[in-house]
């Protein structure tokens, strides 16, 4: 998986490019799961917005990130603990009920994951959460601007 590259790459630029690869393959997986809208949103929001912010930060502090090249990972025991935690979490979710999941029907209901269906669900059944999330995003952007401005 490309996501291994994210944490193994030395330079932050490589690591975020690996992240881009992860996002694109995830988008392909979403298409396989017949969720076209989510696949498109994934590319738009993650690859288009979040990764661009990451790139900006990396470019802004390029000289500073030279010191990263020498930065080693934490000590071996800590790494071991991290890996053990990850594996433990994975296994704990891996109960035997996972193994007898019956395969779903090959063909989905009409229009599953299409923009029309999702839009209807979003604006009719989930209208209040939708508005709340808009408010959250607005507050986040204002907060980010404030934090960024305060220093100068």
């Amino acid at each position, binding site marked *: *998986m490309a*996501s*291994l590259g*994210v*944490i193994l790459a030395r330079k932050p630029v490589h*690591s*975020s490019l690996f992240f881009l690869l*992860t996002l694109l393959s*995830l988008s392909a*997986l979403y298409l396989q*799961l*017949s*969720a076209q*809208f989510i696949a498109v*949103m994934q590319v738009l*929001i993650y690859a288009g*917005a*979040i990764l661009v*912010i*990451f790139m900006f*930060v*990396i470019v802004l*502090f390029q000289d500073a*990130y030279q*010191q*990263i090249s020498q*930065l*080693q*990972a*934490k000590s071996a025991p*800590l*790494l071991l*603990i*991290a*890996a053990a*935690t*990850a594996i433990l*979490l*994975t296994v704990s*979710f*891996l109960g035997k009920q996972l*193994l007898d*999941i019956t*395969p*779903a029907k*090959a063909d*989905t209901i009409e229009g599953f*994951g299409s923009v029309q*269906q999702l839009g209807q*669900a*979003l604006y009719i059944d989930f209208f209040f959460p939708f508005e709340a*999330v808009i408010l*959250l*995003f607005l507050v*986040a952007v204002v*907060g*980010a601007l404030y*934090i*960024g401005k305060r*220093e100068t």
Partner: protein
Amino acid sequence: MDITLFIFISMAMFAIGIIGVLAMRNTLIFFLSIELMLNAANLLFVSFARHWENQTGLIWVFFVLVVAAAEAAVGLAIIINLFRSKQIVDLDQYNVLRG
């Protein structure tokens, strides 16, 4: 359509994200690992939505995407500010919140 493979991929991504958060010292990679874990959760949402043919999961993925975007904006602003004041990128050396 068997979603077991997707669940495995999602768990692997989540595990990699946890390793990244716990073991890496670079602030940016720390942040990317958080995004990785969010993506793993999203993949799980989508695969179970597909499995039960229930669109609510897809709606939740949309909300997670928006929250991730907001979190990235705020978090990166904080990282920039921290870096401006301290000039270090090593996570272990940030101790301004220590009591």
